[in-house]
């Protein structure tokens, strides 16, 4: 199976965007080799600004550049983009609806060996709670490239959550991608699995295993956490009567919470949230960490079976 890190896809997509559009400006905070903005910097040095290790100022400068008509893509690790610079993101970018795309890499546990200090498990919750923010968590390289282009076309602030390790490519170039519209990847009436980011491919694998047991699980890639595709969530709740959410993020405030909020308000059904259980991460290999914190194909299968038993 072909694999690609979403950050690699981001770096390539930025270069393409830069070729097409003169108003694209890219900022980074001394991590351009890791976030992959270095390719853009090499190709368009006059439109790349290294903010140095100063994330708050990077975000503030992004607002200033956007106010002068630039479409700004600002990158660093997710922990710093959404944590360190949070209040600048809120007050300088979101409050004024500035056209700044905060594209953060190294999100979640799969940062790996750098450990808990660098593993953002609360970034979706932070960004989702800010008014005017669009939050996108692509599942693979193809959808990342589509997201970058869609975010350029959309006027206003957005958060794009990207990962460090290579993940399976699940989409082809013709697959639909629209911000705010969930992608239903598999049909099934017994249970619904709603996933985002690196967990989408695992959800697909799990559904395959479940099918062998005669359990038909629907799989949805909820790449846009905000605005959430509420219609899709409600439809799934109606069809299957239970939902499992899966995300490489805290179970507090992320995809699972967003789905629960919608289901509670419109069509209450049992929802189980699979994610990081209100703890910090630690050092380890990405896959070891996913296993340690229960973000595996097996856990998805197990949880779907559990949901059905309670049905």
């Amino acid at each position, binding site marked *: 199976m072909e694999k690609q890190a979403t950050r690699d896809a981001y770096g390539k997509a930025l270069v393409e965007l830069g070729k097409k559009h003169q108003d694209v400006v890219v900022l980074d905070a001394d991590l351009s080799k890791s976030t992959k903005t270095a390719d853009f910097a090499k190709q368009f040095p006059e439109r790349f600004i290294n*903010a140095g290790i100063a994330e708050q*100022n990077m975000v503030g400068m992004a607002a*200033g*550049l956007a*106010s002068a*008509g630039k479409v700004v893509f600002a990158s660093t690790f997710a922990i710093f983009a959404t944590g360190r610079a949070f209040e600048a993101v809120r007050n300088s970018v979101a*409050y004024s609806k500035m056209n700044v795309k905060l594209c953060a890499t190294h999100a979640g546990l799969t940062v790996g060996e750098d450990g808990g200090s660098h593993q953002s498990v609360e970034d979706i919750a932070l960004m989702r709670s800010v008014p005017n923010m669009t939050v996108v968590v692509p599942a693979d390289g193809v959808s990342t490239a589509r997201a970058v282009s869609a975010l350029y076309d959309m006027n206003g602030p957005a958060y794009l959550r990207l990962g460090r390790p290579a993940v399976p490519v699940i989409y082809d170039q013709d697959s639909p991608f629209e911000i705010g519209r969930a992608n239903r990847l598999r049909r099934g009436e017994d249970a619904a699995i709603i996933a985002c980011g690196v967990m989408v491919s695992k959800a697909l694998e799990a559904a395959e295993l479940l099918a062998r047991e005669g359990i038909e699980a629907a799989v949805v890639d909820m790449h846009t956490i905000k605005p959430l595709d509420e219609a899709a969530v409600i439809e799934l709740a109606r069809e299957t009567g239970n939902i499992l959410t899966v995300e490489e993020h805290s179970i507090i405030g992320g995809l699972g919470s967003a789905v629960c909020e919608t289901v509670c308000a419109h069509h209450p059904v049992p929802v189980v949230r699979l994610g990081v259980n209100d703890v910090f991460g630690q050092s380890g290999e990405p896959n070891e960490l996913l296993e340690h914190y229960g973000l595996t194909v097996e856990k998805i299968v197990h949880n779907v079976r559990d949901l059905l038993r309670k049905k």
Partner: protein
Amino acid sequence: MKQIDQQQVQRLKEQAREVRRQIIAMLGQAGSGHTGGSLGAADIVTALYFWEMNIDPQKPDWEDRDRFVLSKGHAAPLLYAVLAERGYFPSDRLQTLRKLGSPLQGHPDRSKLAGVEASTGSLGQGISWAVGMALAAKMDHKDYRVYTLLGDGELEEGMVWEAAMAAAHYRLDNLVAFIDFNGLQIDGPVEQVLSPLPIPAKFAAFGWEVLQIDGNDIRQILEALNCARLVKGKPTAIVARTIKGKGCSFIENKVEWHGVAPKGEEIARALAELNM
């Protein structure tokens, strides 16, 4: 380089006095807001909008306009008074300051009021906006200039120094930062709360050209702005010594007037002093 003549200086002094009257009236009407800092920096912002900046109030979004960012966003009444006086909006709107639904928010909101360049109020962020704007000008090979006004207490924010480092690194000679050096912040004298002194040496060490003036002296402000236009390859900091509350004797240099509005008799007294 612009000629400075005595008539112009006199005219700007009168304009600043009118701006101060508007500030008092507006704050009196609002019943809350930041009086001291708004009055103290009135000469600087008046000089920018009525003498220095290349702007057109009829075209607030004109691409090539000079830009001003009020980094010390709590002095919003000052910015609003100047914008109204300059013709960005009718001055009767000043009476809506801080009221529900008003474009004149407690701190400036660029999405609500034409002429406001940046949404500020969270200290330290405005200078970053200004750096971003100045970078954009360089990128586009445009010759517009960017001005910002920071409080001295605001210099305690670490983000200011991130921005200061970036401005010097990117050689932004199209950027001028005024430091409203009135020596007071909410909790007391800046030297007692958390001293940002010496201010000129800090900016110099960060690679800025530094000018020191009396920020309540119009002529000195104009001369400094002329000087800043001659600086090449680096940004300019104008450390402007001001009197917080300038123009109203009972407000001047009183820390308790940082964040309260004049009421009743105080309004009349302040206006009477400003009319003298």
